[in-house]
């Protein structure tokens, strides 16, 4: 082999030397290697099909970054005769200062000819490479009987040219420049205009709208169990006020508490904005989730009266000293609020993931701090209302206060299960819910005599809890893991969810790899979904366990090329990919159409559930 090629080389060199001397007297035109624009047949791949109605359908697959003009698609009889009536779909109106308005096609184009006849047809079309070259009109002759496509005048095979390529200097070569751009500044995919939540809020209403939106998000989050610990903590603080508690004082103390909480959140926001990084990596680590679940369990047991939780005596004393009791309890309220954020903050990161990602994207410290401060205030508003209204009622602590505490205790246990669920083996979550429900049912049944007011309601609720707990136990034993459909495994068709094959994701880790995957999907005319996940992303566990395996999700995602970017270990390649796709962190899902263009409005960030995912997939397919 080596010998063989060596012989060839020598022979060639001899020929070349002789020819070179001959050519020295001729001018030599040089051509950069790997000329930048694609050959026209690669830019616009023409296929001809027989249409169902007996006509002909001409289809072009258009390379990304290239487009065809609608008005330049024409058909004639090949003998130079009459124009044939060609039907084309409407394209995209391209309207920019360099262009004027004209209709063009990206990704694919189709034209149909309803009555082609038997004579050969000359089909002419013309397009451009975006910011590169505008091709001259191309004509192909199509035999309507055999569907064979030939180039007019046999120009397909390129002539060899006297004007020879020189050894190429990469710096001088526009082709190479453009090739680099393809992998760098102008990748073979196109992102949708939608810049994300915060930028779009900013665009619509400026900073004011962002700042107005976040307290609203906070208010919504205030009704998640994560925020519940604030209530007993606040109630405890108010109860200590004893005689002095008035609605006004309740308002002042709870407001200070909420200010403290919001300040802690503001710090988090500032950190997110300052680092531009994904704080989730810390806040969402399984470690953090585990600690928090444990903390909630501890809180719950305290609510059940197993022990009393309070700040160390030294702290409360230090706080109470100084300007007197009143100021002390105010200061204590601020400190309590600030430290409560340590519990509430990480607990809400799952719903908060999106907001944190967007803030990290803006990399704006002030905005981040202000937005999360607003979020904290929003979360605290119901608490302030509660404290103010309850200010006159609360101090008469009695048996009912214990009942409230115990109900909270069950709430905390539920939160603990919810936080720990992604970390637990699949079936265990259901058992825990069952245990909690049965425990609650028993408690309510025993502690609330039927003679008491509302006794019937409480009895009914407790019996329902017992019953559902039993059902969950059965479901868990049978291998179900959906708390809302524990018996689905027994339903006809034996678990529709498990019969369909699981979704298969192809791994990707770099811009180049992903571009190649988009290109191959383009070949198969399939849309693509890329999913960013990581080991440290607890929300992703939930998505992988209960969202992706759901039958409706499988159904919605069928037909997509699925690509998964695991960013557990951050390296240069996947950082680059995330930057290119404007992804701040997992979990993020982005949908691309067949042409590698992101579907606007379909991007999912943060808390992804079955509804949002199927809706996004449907949106992507409608295109």
């Amino acid at each position: 082999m080596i010998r063989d090629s060596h012989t060839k080389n020598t022979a060639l060199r001899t020929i070349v030397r002789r020819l070179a001397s001959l050519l020295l007297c001729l001018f030599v035109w040089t051509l950069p290697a790997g000329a930048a624009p694609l050959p026209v047949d690669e830019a616009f791949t023409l296929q001809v099909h027989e249409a169902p109605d007996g006509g002909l359908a001409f289809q072009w697959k258009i390379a990304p970054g290239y487009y065809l003009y609608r008005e330049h698609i024409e058909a004639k009889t090949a003998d130079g005769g009459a124009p044939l009536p060609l039907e084309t779909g409407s394209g995209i109106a391209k309207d920019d200062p360099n262009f004027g308005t004209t209709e063009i096609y990206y990704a694919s184009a189709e034209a149909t000819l309803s009555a082609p006849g038997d004579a050969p047809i000359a089909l002419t079309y013309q397009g451009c490479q975006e910011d590169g070259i505008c091709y001259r009109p191309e004509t192909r002759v199509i035999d309507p009987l055999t569907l064979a496509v030939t180039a007019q005048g046999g120009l397909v095979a390129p002539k060899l040219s006297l004007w020879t390529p020189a050894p190429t200097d990469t710096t001088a070569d526009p082709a190479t420049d453009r090739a680099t751009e393809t992998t760098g500044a102008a990748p073979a995919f196109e992102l949708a205009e939608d810049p994300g939540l915060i930028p779009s809020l900013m665009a619509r209403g400026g900073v004011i709208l962002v700042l107005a939106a976040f307290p609203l998000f906070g208010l919504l989050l205030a009704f998640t169990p994560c925020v519940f610990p604030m209530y007993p903590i606040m109630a405890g603080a108010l109860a200590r006020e004893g005689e002095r508690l008035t609605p006004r004082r309740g308002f002042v103390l709870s407001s200070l508490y909420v200010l403290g909480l919001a300040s802690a959140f503001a710090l988090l926001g500032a950190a997110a904005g300052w680092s531009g990084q994904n704080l989730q990596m810390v806040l969402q680590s399984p470690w953090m989730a585990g600690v928090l679940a444990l903390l909630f369990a501890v809180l719950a047991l305290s609510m059940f009266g197993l022990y009393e939780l309070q700040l160390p005596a030294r702290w409360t004393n230090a706080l109470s000293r100084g300007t007197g009791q009143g100021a002390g309890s105010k200061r204590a309220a601020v400190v309590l609020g600030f430290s409560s954020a340590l519990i509430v903050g990480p607990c809400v990161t799952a719903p908060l993931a999106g907001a944190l990602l967007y803030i990290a994207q803006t990399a704006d410290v002030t905005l981040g701090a202000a937005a999360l401060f607003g979020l904290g205030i929003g979360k605290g508003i119901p608490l302030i209302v509660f404290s103010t209204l309850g200010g006159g009622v609360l101090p008469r602590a009695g048996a009912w206060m214990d009942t409230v505490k115990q109900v909270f205790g069950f709430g905390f246990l539920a939160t603990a299960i919810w936080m720990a669920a992604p970390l637990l083996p699949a079936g265990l979550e259901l058992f825990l819910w069952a245990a909690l429900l049965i425990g609650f049912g028993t408690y309510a049944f025993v502690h609330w005599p039927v003679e008491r007011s509302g006794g019937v309601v409480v009895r009914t609720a407790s019996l329902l809890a017992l019953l559902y707990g039993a059902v969950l136990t059965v479901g868990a034993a049978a291998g179900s893991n959906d708390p809302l459909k524990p018996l689905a495994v027994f339903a006809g068709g034996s678990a529709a969810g498990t019969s369909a094959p699981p979704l298969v994701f192809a791994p990707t880790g770099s811009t180049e790899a992903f571009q190649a995957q988009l290109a191959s999907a383009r070949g198969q005319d399939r849309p693509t979904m890329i999913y960013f996940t990581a080991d440290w992303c607890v929300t992703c566990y939930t998505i992988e366990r209960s969202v992706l395996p759901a039958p409706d999700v499988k159904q919605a995602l069928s037909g997509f090329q699925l690509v998964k970017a695991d960013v557990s270990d951050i390296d240069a390649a996947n950082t680059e990919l995330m930057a290119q796709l404007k992804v701040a962190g997992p979990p993020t899902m982005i949908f691309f159409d067949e042409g590698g263009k992101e579907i606007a409005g379909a991007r999912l960030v943060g808390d992804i559930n079955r509804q949002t995912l199927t809706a996004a997939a449907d949106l992507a397919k409608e295109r």
Partner: protein
Amino acid sequence: MITRRNLLAGSAAGIAASAAAFTLLPAALQAQGMPTVKEVLFDPEIPVLGNPKGDVTIAEFFDYQCPYCKKAHPDLMEVVKADGNIRLVMKDWPIFGAPSFHAATMALAAQKSGAYPTAVAALMATDGRLSLEEINTALRGAGLDPTALQAAHDKKPDWINGILRRNDAQAEAFRFGGTPSYIVGTRIYNGVMDKKALLSAIADARKG
């Protein structure tokens, strides 16, 4: 590594490593069909922009309706002006139908009155697609008289038609895919060139 396979692939104009070797052979065999430097860069009927005595020639095959030709034109003119030693030959290659032919004809006809650079500048400054009327309006806006230009052309149609035919044959011979395509010195560049690409192409041309 020069193999038979590379030689075949070479006809598609790639593979820099073996470029020098693989092209010389077929080039010699095909020499007869190709235009010469004189024909392409020194067509006596096409006016020269920039410095007529410049040491490097840039020829651009272009169309007045090609958006990227027009977008890149200010950069090209700036480079030519700043360098001061470049011959710029605008090779009309109308590929977008009748308006493109009309625009090219009008501009070339303007050279009789010495207004060719004005006509080129006016037409290159237009937006995207053009109608015949838009072309005439642009010319009028630059102080030219489209009717007179048309009359001059109609008197001797073969003159400009000949230029366009030669340009087209050369573009065909070079197997240009479309516009813009450039020749800088004797190197061929397909697709739009930004300032950086032009500067390094000029530098290469001077290196020889």
